[in-house]
């Protein structure tokens, strides 16, 4: 198993927001985590990335305990995240943002190759490479955030609501890019509000409700599940 989350409990101050979460991701999979606002999806990803500390339980990547590592060490192992709200470095150029994505990488040839790959995937970023990231459109910023994540040469990429605030046509294109990234060998964990699209893309999925996994199935199974249909797919 590439990534295992075991009985993960997370508190903000005295408030427990994840109550013993269990999930796993196999190599090569696309796994989606669905859930309403405030269910704890971002918290789960942030805890995997080491920005939020767990109060109990464990996170294992290739059997290495991530919960004992600092955030920067986790990226170095090949776990990258594209955070909710993009969080590009607005006053740095597109090129600098991408190079920051490769901060843990030491092989210049590999960095070069990944940069070419990102520019090929998102040609607009090449055109805009000298522009400040804050001046990009929302969609372009999302592309930059994904490209920046890929520059870390990740084995697993955690994507937090990549469709947030994008026009439907752009969402489609971002999702097909995610599939492409996955085909190139990167395992994907996808947090989404857009449950229908996410389940069409994913192999498996988890449904998170107020800090607990309440459902876990193949994407097909979840798409057909009556409860999922009413709660997350608009009852159709």
């Amino acid at each position, binding site marked *: 198993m590439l990534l295992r989350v075991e009985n993960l409990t997370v508190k903000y101050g005295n408030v427990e927001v994840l109550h013993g979460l269990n999930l796993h991701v196999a190599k090569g999979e696309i796994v989606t985590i669905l859930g309403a606002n405030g269910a704890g999806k971002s918290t789960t990803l942030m805890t995997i*990335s*080491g*920005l939020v500390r767990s109060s109990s339980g464990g996170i294992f990547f290739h059997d290495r305990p991530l919960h004992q590592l*600092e*955030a*920067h060490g986790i*990226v*170095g192992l090949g776990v*990258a*995240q594209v*955070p909710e709200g993009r*969080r*590009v*470095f*607005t*006053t*740095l150029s597109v090129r*600098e943002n991408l*190079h*920051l*994505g490769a*901060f*843990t990488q030491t092989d210049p040839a590999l960095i070069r190759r990944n940069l070419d790959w990102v520019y090929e995937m998102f040609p607009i970023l090449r055109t805009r490479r000298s522009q400040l990231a804050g001046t990009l459109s929302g969609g372009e910023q999302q592309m930059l955030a994904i490209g*920046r994540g890929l520059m*870390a040469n990740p084995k697993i990429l955690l994507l937090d609501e990549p469709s947030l605030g994008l026009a439907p046509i752009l969402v489609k294109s971002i999702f097909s890019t995610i599939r492409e990234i996955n085909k190139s060998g990167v395992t994907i964990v996808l947090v989404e509000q857009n449950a229908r699209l996410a389940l069409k893309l994913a192999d498996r999925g988890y449904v998170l409700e107020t800090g607990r996994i309440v459902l876990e199935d193949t994407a097909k199974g979840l798409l057909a599940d009556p409860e999922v249909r009413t709660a997350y797919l608009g009852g159709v």
Partner: protein
Amino acid sequence: MQLFLEQLTNGLAVGGIYALIALGYTMVYGVLKLINFAHGDLFTIGAYLGLTLLLSLGLTDHLGPLAGIAVLAAMVMGLVAVIGALLERVAYRPLRTSPRLSAVVSALGASIFFQNAVMLLYGARFRVFPHDLLPTTAITLFGVNIPVMRIILFATSLLLMAGLYAFVQKTRTGMAIRAAAIDQGAAKLMGIDVNRVIMYVFLIGPALGGVAGLMVGLYYGQINFTMGWVYGLKAFTAAILGGIGNIPGAMLGGLLLGVIEAMGATYISMAWKDAISFLVLILILIFRPTGILGERVADKV
């Protein structure tokens, strides 16, 4: 006109010093959103350490005045940098997740501690630098008399600022510092060790502030344990003037404040020299709190 140009060179020389100190405020503010109130005292410590090393090592005898002082400056920078990094470890890091006010109180406490430590070690009276070290001559340029010392001072600050700018713009660590100043969380997601970035900032800022202390000692010939207060406040004004958190802003703000002050002292009244700086601070806070470069590149270090 001649008086104006003379005061301009004077203002730039002093402004260079303000700029060096201001960089420390601005860089720390950039990554921690904290005003390091003890920074002015690190400047004082630089001056006193410089004097002690100057008197005890005899570097200027062995190496000649210029090389001797260059080595001395490097030593002061190194020592004050270490003190700065220790300050961060002891006074700020434990409070990283506490409410902001705790860190502010801790900063004020550190300032009082340093000031008293210097007073206890060196006494409360003015201490005098040997004044036969550096050239006291002046050169005449376009009919304007410029003391050589002033030129050396200004050139040194420019060199240090250029070095810092290149470091921040061109190196991996410099890029990490800029990224952490914009969004610490996102910087961590890039694999940047933010604690290390903060340590670098607390090495670089105090190193520049410390060497500024030495420069003031050499330029004016005398130092006092409270000197960090006035210089600190002026450099802080310079940092705000340029846009706090902004590195080129601190450089510009420092030079500008030096010139404003020199002009004010000449054309308004010598007695009002310090008041003018604080007037600048108040006006900036009222009319343009983001400073000169603050808006365009608000969250750039």
